Each structure stands twice: as C-alpha cells, then as structure tokens.
C-alpha cells in the first residue's frame, strides 16, 4: 500500500501548476468567459503541446497512454485555475467515448486529431428528463438504408457548439433492460437536421447546449461500438467523467480554502486577524476536512477505475457524491468568510463558486450518486 502520488505525477502536477499560473491567470479566464469559445486557438494549441489532450489515449492512438489517476493530477490543477474551454467535453467525453468504444479505424480517424488539437468533440447523453443513466435515453435511432436516422433532443451537452463531432447516445431497440438497446453514433457538426443552441448557464467558462436532432441521417460507419450494446462502454465513460469532475472540484475547493486562509490571516476586525476567531478558524478547519475527504475518495475512485476493481462504480459514485457536496459547501464558506468582498463580480471567488455549481450537478449531483451508492450497497 502506498497512497501518495509518484514522482512522475508530482512532476506532472508541478508542470501543470506552472503552465496554468503563467498562461491561465484569472484575467485570462475572465476574458474567455465573455466569448462563445471560452478558449483561444493559441491556448488550445498549447494544451496539445503539453500532451494533455491525448493524455489518456493509447500511444498508437496518438496519446500518452497514462491512466485516469494521472489525469486526476492534471484536473486538480485545472480546477484550481478554473481553466476555461472544451477540455472536459473533448478529452473526457467525446474523446473518451471514442477511445472506449471505437473500432481501430474510428480511433485512428479521431483520436490523433483530438490529441494534436485539430479536432474537438463532445458527448450528447442527457435529455430533458435530466437523468444520467441508461433509462434517460429516449432519443431514437432507427435503421434506414445505408445507416441510421436519429431524432430527439439532448440537453446540457457540454460545449456542443464547439465540437467537430458529437457522440450521440440513442435507443436502437426496446431491450429487456434499460441498458439494452442503447447505441452510440458519431455525428459530425453541420449535418442536416442537427441544431445546437448555447444555453446561458452558471459557468461561462464551459457552455452547455441544447442539441436537437431532427431526422439526422448518418451512415453505418457512424455507429460507435456494438449495436444495442453501447451502454457498457458508455457507462465507463460516464464514470470517468464523474471522477474527472470530482478532481476538478477538489482542485477548485483547495484554491478557495487557500484564498480564504490567506485572507483570514491578513484581514483584521476588532483589532485582530479574523482567522484568530474560532468562528472563522473552525469553519476553515471544516473546509479542510471536506477537501481532504473529497480528495481521498477521488484518488481511490481513479485508482479503482484504472485497476478495474470490482467496486469501481461504487467508488466513483462515492467520490462524486462527496466532492459535489464538499465543493458547494467550501465555495459557500469561502464567500461567507470573505464577507462582502467575496460577493462581488470583481473578486475571483465567484469564478470558483460558479464552476463548483456547474460541476456539482453535471453527471449526477450528490443525491443522484447517493441513490446509486445505495443501490450498489443494497444489492
């Protein structure tokens, strides 16, 4: 047993920290928030250069072949920096789905281009019912000469407006279980019948979209993975996404605590630093406990996923449930302890509060994952 990061991982963290400090200060984040892309081509190219866009892809797919735990290191730093842009959508979702389900040909077609920054992707999973499991998928894909025709509406699709290709989950038959009958399709941007609307939402550094498919025709080669049996790979992609969000939340929450502690040492009231009052000190201690626990569960979940442990799904839901609550509580406490200044647009805390809220509800909030934990425990 050794539950620390390796030297390589610590180096990766240091490099990420330095890069993001230099290239992604909050002034940059704020500028990107104002734009539709939430990211400059230059910055995206730099991410590719760092090797981050293909970090989890196999080497033969143009990636670095690293594991989820390595990505967690990176994501903590990205969370710390509120890094804007479609990294999550492209690497974890669209790229993750292609890596998990794609044929060799499909992987060769897309993954190297994701890794080198020339292609962006996302995953269109959730529908207006706001479920994150197989039962939520009601969009239909019916077989048609030479391919499939997809119809339905997807909601909360991350950065769909930037994606060159969308992986779309649809129902190809009514199976015996909810999982049976789910298939995945590669839908390129601009195809007739596809319309994408950006939905104004809390976190402007990553947009959410409504994606409508009105009789969108795709060829047979658009099928990603096995017909009707798309869920098992997709489920793993969703689990990885949940761990990724947990890691981001850990990084963001740690930054909020750091800012708060720093402020509590400097700011004085009634002649003493506010951090010397137990009302502030004890709250900071509670924040630390929340964060340490969230990290512990997130690291364990990433390790369990990487190792294919039997309890990986349970570990993932435990991490996402705990981190979602922790990050909300920490962000709120951070603002509370900053007082008025923490409520302003000008102060960076708002960036963390908003990202925390977006991550909290994405891919299942704490309540959703607790229910899954109960189901897995009770089985």
């Amino acid at each position, binding site marked *: 047993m050794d539950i620390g990061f390796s030297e390589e991982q610590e180096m990766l963290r240091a490099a990420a920290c330095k890069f993001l400090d230099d290239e992604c200060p909050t002034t940059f984040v704020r500028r990107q928030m104002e734009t539709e892309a939430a990211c400059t081509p230059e910055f995206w190219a730099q991410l590719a250069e760092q090797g981050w866009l293909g970090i989890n892809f196999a080497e033969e797919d143009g990636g670095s072949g690293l594991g989820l735990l390595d990505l967690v290191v990176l994501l903590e730093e990205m969370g710390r920096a509120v890094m804007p842009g479609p990294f999550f959508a492209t690497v974890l979702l669209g790229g993750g789905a292609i890596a998990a389900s794609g044929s060799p040909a499909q992987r060769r077609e897309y993954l190297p281009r994701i890794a080198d920054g020339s292609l962006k992707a996302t995953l269109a999973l959730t529908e207006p*019912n706001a479920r994150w499991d197989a039962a939520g998928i009601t969009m239909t894909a019916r077989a048609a000469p030479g391919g499939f025709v997809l119809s339905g509406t997807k909601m*909360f699709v991350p950065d769909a407006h930037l994606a060159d290709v969308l992986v779309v989950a649809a129902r190809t038959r009514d199976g015996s279980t909810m999982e049976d009958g789910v298939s995945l399709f590669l839908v390129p941007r601009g195809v007739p019948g596809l319309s994408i609307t950006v939905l104004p939402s809390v976190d402007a550094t990553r947009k959410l979209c409504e994606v409508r498919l009105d009789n969108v025709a795709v060829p047979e080669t658009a099928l990603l993975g096995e017909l009707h049996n798309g869920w098992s790979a997709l489920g793993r992609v969703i689990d990885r996404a949940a761990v990724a969000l947990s890691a981001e939340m850990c990084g963001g929450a740690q930054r909020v605590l750091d800012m708060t502690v720093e402020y509590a040492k400097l700011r004085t009231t009634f002649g003493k630093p506010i951090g010397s009052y137990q009302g502030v000190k004890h709250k900071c201690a509670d924040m630390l406990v929340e964060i340490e626990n969230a990290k512990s569960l997130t690291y364990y979940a990433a390790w369990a996923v990487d190792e294919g442990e039997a309890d990986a799904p349970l570990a993932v839901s435990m991490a996402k449930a705990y981190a979602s609550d922790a990050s909300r509580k920490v962000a709120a406490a951070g603002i509370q302890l900053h*007082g008025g200044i923490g409520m302003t647009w*000008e102060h960076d805390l708002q960036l963390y509060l908003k990202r925390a809220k977006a991550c909290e509800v994405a891919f299942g909030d704490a309540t959703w994952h607790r229910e899954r934990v109960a189901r897995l425990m009770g089985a």
Partner: protein
Amino acid sequence: MDFSDSPEHAAFRHEFRAWLDTNLDDDLKVEDAQDQRIAPDREILERRIAWQKKMHAAGWVGISWPKEYGGRGANFMQQVIWDEEYFRARAPILPCQSGLNLLGPTLIHWGTEAQKKRYLPKILSADEIWCQGYSEPGAGSDLASLRTRAVDRGDHFVVNGQKVWTSGAHFADWCFLLVRTDPDAPKHHGISYLLVDMKTPGVTVRPLVLLNGHRHFNEVFFEDVVVPKENLVGKLNEGWKVTTTTLMFERGGAGGRDHAAQIARLVELAKQFPNRQEPAWAQSHIRQQLAQLAIETKALQMTRLRGLTRRLRGEPPGPEGSILKLFGSELAGRIADFSSTLLGPYATLDTPTEAVPDAPRWLNRVTGARQYTIAGGTSEIQRNIIGERVLGLPKG
C-alpha cells in the same frame, strides 16, 4: 395568546389590501421579492417613483410617522400589517425605503425642526432618494472603526474618505453619512452623523457589481467634500448614539419573508418535475426536505410574530432581531440549496425552459444566497450579538 387580527386590524388589513388590488399594476410587481435593489435600472426607478407618489397621495407612505410629519401615526401593528400586505401583493420596494425606514425615524428623533421640515416631506413624496453611508473598506463588521474624516472649518465640514456597500448610491440625491470628527476619542466616540448632497463636488460613485451581475451596491469616494454645518444631525461626536436606533431598525427588518412563496413553488415543481421519470414528490427524501423547509419557514414566521408582540407590548426593538436575521438568511440559503437538489442541472440555466420556466430566478437564488448571510451583519456577527446581548456571555 391570539394569533388572529383584532376586528380593527382586520379592517385596516382589508382596506390596504383592497387599495393595492385596485392600484398596483401587474407590470410594477416584482418577480423576486428577495431582490432588494431599489431598481435594476433608471427606467424602472422612474416607474417606482411614480408608484410611490401614487401611494403617498393615497396616504399609504410612512404610515407610522407622526401625523405632524406627514405620516398617519399608525401603531406598530398597523405597520406590521402594512408590511405583510405590501409584501404579499408583490409590490416593489419604495425608492425612498432607506429614507422612510432609516433616516426618517432618526430625523424625527434627533433632527432639528428645520431639518425635519426640509427633508421629511421629500422622503414621503419620493422627490429625494437617500442612501446610507456607513460601511467602509477595512471596517467590515466593526462598523465603529470607520475612518472617513470630517474636519471642522468653521461654518462647514470638509469630508475625505471612502464608503463601501452603499446601496442605491448611483440613484441617490442625498446620503446620510457617518464620519469621524474626533480622531483621538475612543472608537465609539468622535463619530458624527451628516447629511450630504450627492451632487456636491468631490463625491464619486463607483459600482460594486455582485457576482450575479446585479448592480445595487457602490463604493462612494469623498474628496474634500464641503458639508454645511446645519447638516449635522444630533450633537457633534455623538453620531454613534444617533445611529444605533437606525441600526436596530435595519436588523429588525431583515430576514426574507419570501420563503413561503418559494417553497410553494418548489412543491409545485416537485409534483410536476419529470425528475427520474416519476415526479420528484414521489420520493420521500424530496418530501422530507420540503417539509423541513416549510416547518422552518413557519417557525421563522411565528418567532417573528412573538417578537412583534414584545414590541406591541411597548418594549423597544431588541437583539431578538438577530435571531430573525440569522435564521432567516441561513434558511434562504437552505432553500436555494434544495432547489438545486430538486432541479439538478436546470438550476444552473440562466434561461427559461419548458420544464422549468423560472430557472433563471432559481439560479439567481442559488448563486446569490450568500448575500443574505453577509449583508446587514454576517451570521457570525449575529451569533456574537445573540451570545453576548441575549445570553450574556462574555466578549471574546
């Protein structure tokens, strides 16, 4: 003990409710009663000024002020009924609210006859809008450590310094201002209470935008601002005494009463919302949480009424206001948190959808909930006040 209106009070309630029903146009009604901005923009401000004039003409403004100053001399219970009905009708905040609730009572108590005559009528008629210049950067909860200085120059003061969190300063014609006039005196002494024309040269207003994008608060800078001597309220260096009354009124008034309406809407949403295919209401954890919020809302309401009773029996507003402020603002946060549990990702959308047409309002509550536990005295400060002034625990 009697929780119902007496016949006279019921009649008063009925009269005011009927007047509001007839006179309050729909487009004046506020969407979110927790929005405390006197107006989101200049155009709406003008409409609300017109509304206050209409109210005033009908004798419904400043009803608790003595008759000689243009009020009705309404008793405390009538003022409570006024508040409840005004709120219930979703009528907008009166543009002169800080004049009506804070400056007015202070002037009536401490002002000279000349000051009363000069300022009070225009508060009632909405001809002059006031803002409150108390908080300073670096002072925070320790209000009395303020550093904005006023130097005596014979027939006038010269003010230099900075205020912060000044609500509505960008719309205000006048400011009631706390300044230090004796820097050598102990903290609570040496403070004076001045009335400052916002058009005086040297006054600069800079917006403090909130994280939800709302402009409500401001920083106000004073650079060699000349204030005539007759604008001093109360005695020189006794401004802290002058202001304490006002602060009590502010705290007593806090603690949102929009909770019940929000909970009713959440119950409605829980019953319709196709969360996980069955209505959310079918899940016991949703019912448990909504019931708990409803119970806490009722508790807040009843504790408020018990406090009012003490006032009705002639006791002054005391620190029990801190209980309402503390619990009410924390409860607002719990309601907002629950709305996100119920609505999931819909709680993050700043746009109406078919499933949740009022999503933006919920998002605003979700991100803005912290305001209530900070503004007007943080929860930490309220707990200090309760611990020290109610329970008699020693200062830290």
